[in-house]
Structure formats: C-alpha cells, structure tokens
C-alpha cells in the first residue's frame, strides 16, 4: 500500500481500546503519555483519566507489528477530552426518534467517509456494576446460559433487559449514526468477559467503595449478565450491518470468564489481551468488504 494512501484502520474507542492500542501501536511513545499515576487504575490506564493526555480529536499512530495495519487513526474518547455525547436522541413524530451527531462526531465521520474499515470499542464496562453483589440473591433466564440456580427467585428478563437496553443503546446509536453517514466497513469489538477472580484485582478502578461494601456476585451471575448484554448488543449491531468481533477464545476460561493472565483492573484486558484482539481485528479487516 503506498504511503500516500489513507489510513489502514480507524479506531473509535473508550477505555477498552487502550489494551489494543498498547498491543498494536506506538501511541505511548507518540503522545508521551506519562500521565499522573493513579493506584486505582491498571498500568494500561495511567494517564487515561488525566485530562489532556489524549487529543480531543483523532490522532495518527503507527502499527508496531508485522501486520498490514500500519497507519492507524485513533479517536480515544477520554474523560479528559470533555467531549459531548457522540449522539443525541431527539424525539420526533410519535414513536419515532431521530439521531443527531455532535459537531465533533459529525466532523470526524465526514473525514472518515470512505473504504477504510472502522473498528469501535465504545463503552462495554457497564455490566460491571450489575455484577457487584448489590441485590439479594436472584437469577434470570438467559438462553445462552440456560442453567438456573435452584432456590433463587427469577427476575423477569424484561426487567433485566430494561437495564441492558440502556447499555446497548450507548453503543448502538453512535454506530447507527456512523452507518448513516459513512459507508466504511464497520465492526464493534465486544468487551472482555468478567474476570475469573475479580477479588484478585489490584486496581479497583472507580468501584473501591462499592466492592468493599457489597463484594462480587457469583461468577455464573456475572457471566450471565455479560452474555445477555453481548447477545443483545450483537443482535442490534448486526441488524444495521455492523460486524461483531468476539473476545479471543484463548483469553477465556472453559467457563467463559476472562483468564487472570489476560486481565487488567476489574473489567479490562491487558496488553496480551490487546494483542489477541488485534489479531482478530486484522483478520476481520482483511476480509472486510471494501
């Protein structure tokens, strides 16, 4: 590919994209992100929450490995960038909702319009709050994990979905807007599954107080929330022609949890996880329709 050609990949990411960027790109060297160290966050997140580490708008980084993704443009939507929501839902005719892109998102999408694949790693941490042991014991039905814990009340899946739909919408609407404004091949990377042993996490991110108070829900329940979230999200994204990239199987235990050696903090993957994810993205980008 000649150097004058456009980038090989656009990345539209929140925090789950950091492990990928670490594995795939030279972003730390480029941005000199030594940012303030915060013991609440894992190594991948030093500077993540510090204002000004990432540019407000997309920036270009170089691919590190031998893969074909050499020129990458990443838009890391960090808390410090103080960006408005990418998309706002506006009530229209009865029963109709229209989407309005923020000025920044609109600007980016117009610049990105073309054949270069776009990979999203937006949001994906929301299920962590549901997996703290906040509630009295319960279970719910999820077809991908049909076992039901004996002796526990079942919460109607409609109430579970009311929560999950909100989380799904966070990802769905920005990507639906992207599909409206740009013809690029689009994929969303599902977040890593719940960690095998969250109690072993050294970095508790923002949940230190809640964890101390409630502890963690059982692994099977954490996994059930995660699976339902991923299933619902995948269904909606596929309905608008967005590919869905699943977590790498090598990083998951037989039960489906994130193996400890791939975990960073409570809910994120580490650089090794990012490398496996990068391979999956490369594979998808190779086969993505131009």
């Amino acid at each position, binding site marked *: 590919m000649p150097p004058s050609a456009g980038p090989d990949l656009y990345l539209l990411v929140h925090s789950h994209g950091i492990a990928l960027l670490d594995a795939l790109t030279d972003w730390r060297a480029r941005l000199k992100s030594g940012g303030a160290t915060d013991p609440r966050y894992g190594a991948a997140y030093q500077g993540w929450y510090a204002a000004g580490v990432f540019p407000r708008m997309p920036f270009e980084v170089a691919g590190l490995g031998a893969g074909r993704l050499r020129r990458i443009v990443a838009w890391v939507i960090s808390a410090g960038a103080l960006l408005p929501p990418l998309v706002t839902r506006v009530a229209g005719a009865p029963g109709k909702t229209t989407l309005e892109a923020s000025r920044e998102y609109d600007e980016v999408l117009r610049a990105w319009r073309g054949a270069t694949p776009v990979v999203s790693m937006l949001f994906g941490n929301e299920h962590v709050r549901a997996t703290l042991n906040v*509630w*009295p014991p*319960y279970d719910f*039905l999820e077809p991908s994990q*049909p076992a*039901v814990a*004996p*002796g*526990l*009340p*079942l*919460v*109607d*899946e*409609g*109430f*579970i979905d009311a929560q999950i739909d909100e989380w799904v919408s966070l990802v769905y609407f920005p990507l639906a807007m992207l599909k409206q404004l740009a013809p690029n091949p689009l994929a969303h990377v599902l977040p890593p599954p719940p960690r095998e042993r969250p109690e072993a996490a050294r970095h508790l991110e923002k949940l230190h107080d809640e964890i101390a108070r409630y502890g963690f829900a059982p692994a099977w329940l954490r996994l059930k929330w995660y699976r339902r979230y991923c299933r619902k999200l995948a269904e909606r994204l596929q309905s608008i022609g967005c590919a869905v990239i699943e977590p790498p199987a090598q990083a998951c235990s037989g039960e489906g949890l994130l193996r400890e050696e791939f975990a960073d903090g409570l809910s994120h993957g580490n650089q090794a996880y990012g490398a496996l994810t990068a391979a999956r993205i490369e594979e998808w980008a190779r086969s993505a329709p131009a």
Partner: protein
Amino acid sequence: MSTPYDSLPPERFWRASAAAPDAAAVGFDCGRKFGFAAADRFATAGSCFAQHFSRHLAARGARIVAAEERHPLVPEASGHGYGVFSTRSGNLYTARHLRELLEQALGARAPLVECVRRPDGRWVDLLRPRAVPMGFASEEHVAADRRFHLHAVRRMLEEMDVLVFTLGLTEAWENAEGGYCYPVVPGAVAGEFSAQRHRFVNYGVGAVLADLRRVAELVEGVNRRARLLLTVSPVALAATAEPRSVMVSSSASKSILRAAVDELVRALPIADYFPSYEIVTGPYARGRYWAEGAREVTEEGVAVVMEVFVRSRMPGLAQGTAPVAAAPPSHEDGARRLQAFLDAECDELFLDPATRPTQGA
C-alpha cells in the same frame, strides 16, 4: 330439675348471643382450641377472602411469612403479584388444590406445569393464572418460576407456626388426563376450555375431609410445631356448573366445606376453625356486611371478623388498625376504594360472562 345446659356460659345460648351489643361480644370464637403469640409466624393461603385476612393481620403487626417477595430489580408497579399471600400461589379455592400444591412442594408428586400464551404474548401458569398479573416472558420462565414457587411453598411450610387456609369452593375443574385441578376453569382467565381435556368435579364432604387430612399430614411431616387455622369464605359462588341455582350450589358448597372442617377439627389437635363464615353470614349480622350484589363482604365486615379474631386469639396485637383510612371518604373515593377492595384478585368473577374482565390485559 336441672340439665347439662344450666351451667353453660351465655355464648352457648342463642337469645343471649343475639342480644350481645356487638360481634366481639357474641363469643363467636369461644370454642377455640388455641390462641397465638405475637411471635407466631402466619402463612396465608386460600380463596379471595383469605387475602383480606392476610392484609389485616399484617396491618395489625402480626408476622406474616413471605416466602416469595418482590426482588428490588422488579419494579413495584409491575403487576408482579407478590405480597398477596405468603407465596405467589394465587387463590387456592379448594382443599384439593392446596393438597396438590403441597404434594408437589414436598416431593410427593411431580411438579405440574401447564401454561398458555396470552394474546399480548406473555405466558400464564394455568395452575395460578392470576397470581402473576404481568405474566411470564416465556414458557421456560413459567416452568422455572413454578419450580421456585414450589421451593418457596416448602420454605413457607418449614418456617411458619400457623397456616391460615380459607376454603372457598367445592366445585372445580380438573385436567382429565393429568388428574389435577385448576383454580378456575381453563378459558375463563386464560387458555381454552376443552370438554375432552377438562372435567367438572364437585367434591363432597368425604373428599374435602380426605384432602384436608392429607394437608395436615404433609404439614406435620415437615413442621412439627405448625398448626392449621381453617376458615370458610363467606363469599358466595359466582357461578355454578351444577344444573341448579347458584344460590343452592353456594349453600351446598359452604355446607360441605363447613362440615368437612368440623370433622377435621374434631379429629386433629393441630387443626382449629375460626368462624369468619358465621360472623358474616349468620343472622346476627342481619346482612349488613354484604356489599352490593350480596356476594362480596364489605370492608366493615372484614374489619369485624378481624376484630373478633384479634380479641379472641391475639389480644396482645394492635387493636383497630385495619388498613382503611379513618376519614370519611367522599362518594367517589369511597366507590373507588370499595371497587378496589372487592376486586381482591377473585378469579371466580371470570366465570360469569357479565363480570369477566378482558383477557390478556
């Protein structure tokens, strides 16, 4: 000349009883076997009248076993059905239905699952079709929730000190193949009636007594300290499948229930009877506790029943704290409250086409 009656107290004589200033002074419950302590845990089940009993007991501070409770993830105003009885059993009108439920809960019978889809797409458990007004999300949910319900019934039996069961009917419909009974005929609340699959039964004294004996046996088997407090619902039949007047069928049903309970109470030390039926329907009341339609009992009637109960059985419990606003209601408020009160999840209203609510709402 003297007779054995000469030394009896006034409540044994009609004239003295009828002259009592109020129901509590009549001595309706003077034949009681046992009273209850404030620490006793009450489990409640039965017909729609039992809902009032449960509500008033709770309002007066009695301890009600709640083996199935609303989970915080379930919104309060979602039609979840929790809090009506100790479990989400819905109305259990017949002794047979209670027996079958306990047999399933205690493993003496395989769990029964029969469900149908409502017009709105939600699913209904035909063995408790109005217990969960919002219905279930799927057939699998019905089955899974039924397993939990049976688990909860067992827990209720283990934890309770008293099971208050109000018998309502002798008429019922059974699944001919499975040999189990429904709380209300299929087709009335949900599902479809089939003359081949569903058969009418009207349990006689012997059958009701046998069912109650089996209930007592099952309860004793799982909880040696538990007692049974039986009442008969004063609420008349809404409809009869017998080829005779509903008034006659109602009298027959209540008589059968009353006779069977009397037999049981005479035979079993753990069983006792509380005369809410007599308090409401007896001549002393002069019909004053009937709501419009002469079938349902007014809130005043329920309050009197509970007053007699508390004075007789739990004198330490709070008095006169029935869950009714003290201020005189406006006509509109009163009508609305009365309607809500009468709409005490009574499946039987579905039998009469004139009072049948729309299905699948």
